[in-house]
């Protein structure tokens, strides 16, 4: 029963701190992170983060990726256009390189540095979209470009994550082998697409015939877990499998209904536990020692996106001022970065100390984006 009390406490903290965050115009997720830190071992030390809570949080990650897959619209992807690709690509390559080299220069091992670089790639534009909407600037050239690049950025982020985990699991992989590795992942994607599509379709059709409450949702959940499991068996990240399940289900007629239900399940229980859980696992004391690197890393996170996305925008014939705005809009990191850090922790690449550094980066980029955005958008 104690594990349930812990769950209740985590949910209260999630919603309460999330609420406070939204009141000061910050993303709810930020409040949940900070709430988690507060009840975690570093400060109040009132939760033990037991096995059951761990599983709920892992399922939260799986569900987040599944939802990301469900929202991946292949048609929309085709329509985003060349500029969005250039911006997103610049925003992935530059932060990755900078993050990797700085971490290695600072003395971290190769795998750690690769993950630290990878974490910097995934933007989370929810915050930017909210602020631009309030400033009534979302429907500008820059606003549209940011939203379109985010679509590409999400997919690139998943590819980076999948590749990194596959590299880690195979042990020493050299740059020359990267081609083979990416080829293998591509084969996995294509095969599961070809084999998975008819299966998913049949399973969902069957579930429609079963006249029991929430059968469709239950089957979607079961499919997601099975895909995650199969992906793991092929040494590909389980969450990539979940994402793939989402993409496959997004192609069916049931997508909308499933997505509504999965959102209800995820945000009432699993996702808050994941976000608060990240806060709980963050070791604040380590930050006092490794503080210099955490701050350097956060600065790289900001500069990397501004330079990378900005350069992409310039190539796509944006004016310098517009390019700067796009770059700043792409700074915030949240869910995907946290998921990557979490994977690195569970895979044993990061220890608790190193894990706390990306969490700091997420918090700092979230804090700095609103004032920076207001500044670059008000300079006319």
């Amino acid at each position, binding site marked *: *029963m104690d*594990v*349930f*009390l812990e*769950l*209740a406490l985590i*949910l*209260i903290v*999630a*919603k309460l701190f*999330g*609420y406070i965050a*939204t009141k000061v115009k910050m993303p*709810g997720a930020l409040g949940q992170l900070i709430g988690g830190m507060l009840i975690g071992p570093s400060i109040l030390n009132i939760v033990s983060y037991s*096995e*059951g809570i761990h*599983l709920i949080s*892992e*399922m939260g990650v*799986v569900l987040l990726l599944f939802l990301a897959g469900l929202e991946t619209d292949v048609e929309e992807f085709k329509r985003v256009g060349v500029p969005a690709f250039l911006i997103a690509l610049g925003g992935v390559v530059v932060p990755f390189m900078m993050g990797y080299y700085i971490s290695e220069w600072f003395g971290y091992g190769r795998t750690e540095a690769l993950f630290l670089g990878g974490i910097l790639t995934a933007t989370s534009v929810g915050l930017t979209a909210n602020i631009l909407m309030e400033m009534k600037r979302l429907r500008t050239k820059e606003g549209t470009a940011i939203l379109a690049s985010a679509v590409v950025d999400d997919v690139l982020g998943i590819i980076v994550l999948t590749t990194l985990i596959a590299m880690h699991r195979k042990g020493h992989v050299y740059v020359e082998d990267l081609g083979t590795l990416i080829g293998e992942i591509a084969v996995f994607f294509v095969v599961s697409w070809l084999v998975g599509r008819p299966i998913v379709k049949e399973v969902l059709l069957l*579930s429609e*015939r*079963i*006249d*029991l*409450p*929430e*059968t469709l*949702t*239950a*089957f979607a*959940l*079961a*499919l997601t*877990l*099975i895909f*995650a*499991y199969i992906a*793991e068996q092929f040494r590909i990240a*389980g969450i990539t499998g979940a994402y793939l399940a989402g993409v496959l289900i997004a192609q069916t007629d049931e997508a909308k209904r499933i997505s509504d*239900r999965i*959102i*209800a*399940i995820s*945000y*009432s*229980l699993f996702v*808050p536990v994941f976000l608060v859980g990240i806060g709980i696992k963050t070791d604040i004391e380590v930050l006092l020692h490794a503080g210099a690197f955490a701050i350097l890393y956060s600065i790289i996170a900001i500069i990397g996106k501004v330079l990378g996305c900005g350069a992409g925008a310039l190539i796509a014939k944006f004016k310098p001022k517009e390019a700067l705005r796009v770059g700043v809009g792409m700074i915030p990191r949240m869910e995907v970065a946290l998921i990557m850090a979490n994977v690195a922790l569970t895979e044993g690449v990061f220890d608790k100390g190193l894990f706390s550094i990306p969490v700091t980066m997420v918090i700092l980029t979230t804090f700095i984006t609103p004032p920076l955005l207001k500044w670059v958008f008000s300079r006319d």
Partner: protein
Amino acid sequence: METLIMLALMLAMAKLLGWVFEKIGQPVVLGQILGGLIIGVFAESNEIIREFSNLGVLLLLFLAGIESDLQEFRRVGTPSIFVAGIGVLFSFILGFLVAYPFVEFHEALLYGAIMTPTSVSITVRVLMELRRLRTREGTTILAAAVVDDVLGILVLTMIISLLREGSVDYKTIVEIIVEVSGFLAIFIYLGPVFAEKAFKRISRIDLPESTTAFAVVFLILFAYMAEHLNLASILGAYMVGLTIGQTSYKKQVEDHVSVLGYSLFIPLFFVEVGMRIELSYILHASLFAVLYTAMAIVSKVVGCGFGAYLSGFDLKASLRIGVGMIPRLGVELAMLTIALSSGVIGPDALTIAIFMVFVTTILTPPLLKWVYKR
């Protein structure tokens, strides 16, 4: 990862076998329990799956509560006391009598006590399936379950303290009665007003699914509180559901919690119940175990049925109530584990009680469906 694939398997099994059983006119729940039995042959449940399934039974009773009508619940107070009271009395006496030829006097008392508490989660799900939960019979069964739980725990506490210390601890018994009636009174009279205000505030939180999350929070907190008062945790969950059912947030909370429950946790619960059943117990049952189990069924049907008849139900309705009160689960096993660890009973009693729990669990759904069809 192994646990996650296990969850997927259990979910698929629950829905598929549930469906097959529905097609052949049997209760879905029975299909899910048998599905669990099959999985149980190949794989074992673990701590985490058990926690998930415990959340499932709490969600189930919460949903039963939110569907129930508090007015009706208050109205069936007297009948439910009759049903539970006579049911407990009959089970205790018959349990004692059937055990007496086989064991010593003291132990026979304990066998009588073990037979008393009903656990209605199985009945609730079958009645929901038949769409008969919101009837006078359904409400009476649920209210009687509350009373029965209190009485059952009183009897067990008395017997265990009698066996352990040689005398009955009246002070504890008075304490239990006062605490429990306080708990119930607070719920029934203050609950709805408080819940309305609380949810009004919660709905101001501009984050997705806040009301659902807080419904889960309240459910856990009060289940915990009920358990702290030696009541079954599922009754706390039921009372929370009953209370939220009186507020203007009923529909919203019910819709979302039922998605959470039926897509994952509730099917897991029934499959997990099946996984806990050990076939070897059932195949190698002693004569005593079979007699004891038969008496467990007869005593509730006759006792609770008689109570219902006395309080004005007709014969058919009384039979339905009696059958609805058959299942034993949860409480017994918890109490027995305590008794076993304190050395009051030996492993024999545990084996026999577990056999009785398994058989009543499997028999109740079809029996219940049968008495409702006639």
